[in-house]
Every structure is written in C-alpha cells, then in structure tokens.
C-alpha cells in the first residue's frame, strides 16, 4: 500500500498538472530536487558500503584508507563466526525477540479486545491507567527492575530480558484503535449465535486483525532485538548475550583488526536487513499509521 500511495504521490506531480502548464521553472526545480535527493542517498549509503568494503579486505589491507580491495576475502567473516560466540548471540537475540513479540501480541490484543469490544465498569479508567505507561520511559525503571529480577533469581535468564519488554502500552493502543474500526455488531452477532468471547476473539476478531498484528509483531521484534541497555544489565554470561550486548562487549577485543570488526558488525546487521527487506511495507506503514494517530 505504501508503494501505491507513493506512486499516487508521484502521479500528483507528474499527472496532476497538464503538459502545457509544466513550466521550465518547475522542470528545473524537479531536477534540482532529484539531484539533491540522490546526493543525500549516496551519503547515507556510504557508511554501510564502507563497512562492507572493509570487511572484505584482509586485516592487513585496512591500514590504507582506500575503497580498492586488492585481495578480496571472506576470511574476516569466517574468523568472526569461529572466534566469537556470535552464533549463540543470534540464537539469544532470536529467542528473546520472538518471545517478546509473541507475548506482546497476545497479551496486548487480548487487553485491547476487552477495552474495545466489551462493556464493563471502569473501562475508561483502566484504559487511561494503561496509557499512563506511555509516559514512563523504560530506562528510568532499570534500577528497580534490576533489583526485582535479582531478588526473584531470574538474572542471566531470557525471562529477565523478555518480561519487562512485554507490557507496552503502545501495542494495546494500536490494537484498540484497530478493533474500534471493526463493525460494532460483529461481537453481538456472534454472541447471538452462541459463541463464547474467547472463540469470538480467536476465530473472528484476530483473523481480521492481521495488519495490526504484523505491525506490532515486527516492531516489537526489532525493538527487542536492538535493545542494549536492559539486556546488558541482566545478561552477563557471554553465552546468553544478545547480538547488541555481545558486539558491545567484544568490540574492544578486536583492537586494530578492522576487517574483523566490520565483519562482526555486518553479521550483526544481516538479520535486521533481512527483516527490513521482507517487511519494508509493514514497517513503513506501521510507523506512518501509529505515529500520526498516536
């Protein structure tokens, strides 16, 4: 959908004005626009290309700053895969991010279903109570949360990473907005047919909610995958570290082996680049939709 709206936006400048009205001034203006845009896009891509370029060199070649690679090699990648725990970090990141996304989608959509479709006393109070969570930046809670997990003995477990990231008010808000847009009598009709609320939620409401589910799931996944501060505190065992924590911890150990450092950075980036390419549309739409309505 994002691409179609973009095409429409393009048609606005191209097709909205008839040929006769396109003055040379507008044409020139458009050309300057494209030029500036391409220049910025290139500047934005350079760091990533430079990282890739460095990673494909032998370490010894990185002492001269040049784009030219005399002896291209994947050695830096294989070394990183062998010498660091990066494969374990992948697993840790994948497990924690997936668990966070799954639990967030389930708990937030259930809460939102009650807040949107069911009628009960104190509904608004509860909704506002949950929304208040939007105001609390997770970072101000790290100290008490750490003590909490210390006292229940869950430090250095994936639960410590996952649990505090699950109750996100934004997810409830997104689902509620979506459910509010569903036809009002859907719920009542199913009730008349004798369906229980759980069945209505699972077999009628959730299947209609795919766009919101994918937006929330992808965002939660990416956010959980990228989170540094909290996993850094609760995961001190190198075998359990997530990708960001692992990379941040070993970065000093590479020293001047710049090709190896860049190979580890690229390996750390790969899963997210894959997520981005696969779900580009959902991600962009998700930001646009929630951002503006939120």
């Amino acid at each position: 959908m994002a691409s179609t709206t973009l095409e429409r936006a393009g048609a606005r400048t191209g097709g909205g004005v008839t040929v006769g009205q396109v003055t040379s001034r507008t044409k020139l203006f458009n050309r300057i626009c494209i030029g500036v845009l391409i220049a910025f896009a290139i500047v934005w891509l350079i760091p990533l290309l430079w990282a890739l370029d460095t990673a494909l060199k032998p370490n010894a070649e990185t002492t001269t700053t040049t784009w030219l690679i005399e002896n291209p090699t994947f050695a830096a990648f294989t070394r990183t895969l062998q010498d660091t725990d990066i494969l374990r970090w992948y697993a840790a990141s994948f497990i924690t991010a997936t668990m966070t996304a799954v639990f967030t989608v389930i708990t937030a959509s259930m809460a939102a279903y009650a807040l949107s479709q069911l009628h009960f006393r104190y509904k608004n109070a509860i909704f506002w109570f949950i929304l208040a969570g939007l105001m609390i930046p997770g970072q101000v809670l790290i100290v008490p949360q750490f003590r909490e997990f210390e006292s229940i003995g869950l430090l250095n477990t994936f639960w410590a990473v996952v649990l505090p990231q699950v109750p996100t008010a934004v997810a409830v808000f997104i689902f509620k907005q979506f459910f509010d847009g569903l036809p009002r009598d859907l719920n009542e009709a199913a009730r008349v047919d004798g369906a229980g609320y759980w069945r209505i939620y699972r077999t009628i409401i959730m299947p209609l909610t795919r766009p919101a589910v994918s937006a929330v799931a992808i965002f939660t996944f990416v956010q959980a995958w990228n989170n540094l501060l909290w996993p850094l505190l609760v995961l001190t065992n190198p075998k359990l570290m997530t990708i960001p924590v692992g990379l941040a911890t070993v970065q000093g150990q590479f020293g001047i082996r710049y090709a190896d450092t860049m190979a580890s950075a690229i390996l750390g980036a790969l899963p997210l680049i894959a997520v981005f390419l696969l779900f580009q549309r959902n991600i962009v739409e998700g930001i646009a939709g929630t951002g503006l309505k939120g």
Partner: protein
Amino acid sequence: MSTMTAADSRSATRPGPHRGGIRHDQARPAMWFLAPFVALYLLFIIGPALYGLLMSFFHTSLVKPGLSAFAGVGNYAEALQSSDFWSSLWHTIWFTILTTPPLIALGFVLALLANRVARGSWFFRLAFFAPYILPSAVVALIWIWIYTPGLGLLESMFGKIGITVPNWLGDPTWAMPSLAITTVWWTLGFNFVLYLAGLQDIPRELYEAASMDGAGPWQQIRMITIPLLGRTTTLVAVLQVIASLKVFDQMYIMTAGGPNFSTRSVLQYVYDQGFTNYRVGYAAAISMLFFVVVLAVSAVWFAIVRSQERQA
C-alpha cells in the same frame, strides 16, 4: 492521542443497546482478557516505578539486600548539588540540541523532495530508513571505524580536499558533535517516513488549485505544505526530543562517556552510579529527576497539540 480519547468518550456516553443486563454481563470475560497484560504491567512497570520512587528516599546499595537506611530527600539534595549530575544533564541537553534540529529539518526536506519524485521511491526509503533498524552496536562499530584517527574514512575524504579534521571521538569538544552526526545518520529514516506519510495526507487538489492560481513550487511549499504539516512537525519534534534525551547506547559503546566525561549522558550517569558504584538509591533518585524532565517535555507537547486542535 486526542482522536482516540474523543472516540472513546463518545462510545462510553452513547446510549445504546448495551445498557442494563449485557453491560455488566461482560465484566467477568473482560477481566480475563485484561488479566495477562495488566498483571505483567503491574509487575514489571508500575511495581518497579513505585519501588524506584521508594528506593530514591533510601541509601539503597546494589550489593546489600533491602532498602538500607532512610535518606529522606538526601539523594535528591545530593544530585541537585552534584556537578556531575548537572554536567550529565547538560551533556544530554547538548546532545538533544545538536540532534533535534538537523533530524527534523533533514527529515522534512528529504521527504518533501522524495514526495516530488515519481520513480525510485523504494531506493530512497532503503537508503534513509535502513540504518534506523540496525542495532546501536552495529552503528557504533561502523562509525568508530569511520572516525578512527589516521585510518578513518572521514579523515581521508576531507584530507583529499585539503581539510584537516579533528580527532572526532578523542577530542572533548568534538566527541559530542561526532555522536550527534552518527545519530542523525542512524535515526533520520524514522522522521523521513513520518513526514512522507504527512505529505501524502495533503489533498492534491490544493496544489492543483494553487498552480492554477500561478503559484510556483516554492510558493506551494511555503503556503500549503509547511502550514499543513504543523501537526506532523509537533509530533516529530516531541518524539525526537524524548528519544534524544534518552540517549545511552551511542555514548556507552563509542566513547564510554569520555573523553574526560565530556559525553556522559544522564542515563549513563544513572548506570555508573547504580551499577559501577552500587549506589542504586541515588541512581533511582536521578532516574526520577530525569523522569520529571521527560514528563515536562510531554506536557509541553500536549499543550501545543491542544492549542493546535482548538485552532483547527
């Protein structure tokens, strides 16, 4: 946010078929649907928030169980008198000042340009947005390498046109601007996408009518686009300010708060006090002070949105 509240109060006050029996009938299922989320929310957000508030009035230590001795407002008094606290707050604000204007302006201009281009929008989205989804650690590693004195890409590129660059991350004056440059590169895509969405909500008839009246592209931008993007800009600005105030990752990995503590942010100060010096009571007090700053920013935003809506 306000659209939602309006809709919500409407549905609550609307006299409908749900009055009487059915209404209270649903309290029990509603409780079950709410329970998992609310339980986690109480346990891991509200609980810790209250515990943190409590802890901030005690000399709580990381390595001792319990709250330890009562401190009264001692932790707060100490923080407000500590030059380390004020300088970390200033570093955070300095970082916010350095990142917010370019991130808003560039996000706006690039979205505006991309919106005029008919083809290749995927390419621009890829270029500007891809960095945003990378982990901070990856971004930090790449930029440490780019900034490396003697070998870094920036030094060699500027060297070719005869400009001597500073020792980016090693110079106390330049360390923060360097982190800001990295951050602009990293997070621009988010604002870019928000502005692009805002631009697409502007009805194209407005532009057509304006061009009929002989308005050039520049006039159209000034008279139509900028005023109509007012709400988007408020949103982008507040999200940006809050995100910048919460900065931690870049400093932690790229400079460790240095050189000479010149890039230590509030959150890093909390981290240092709580987890290096074990003074979690004091760290909790700083967290609370920081929370007040973030709340103040949100409140200002809320006031602006309200007044914008009254005008509309």
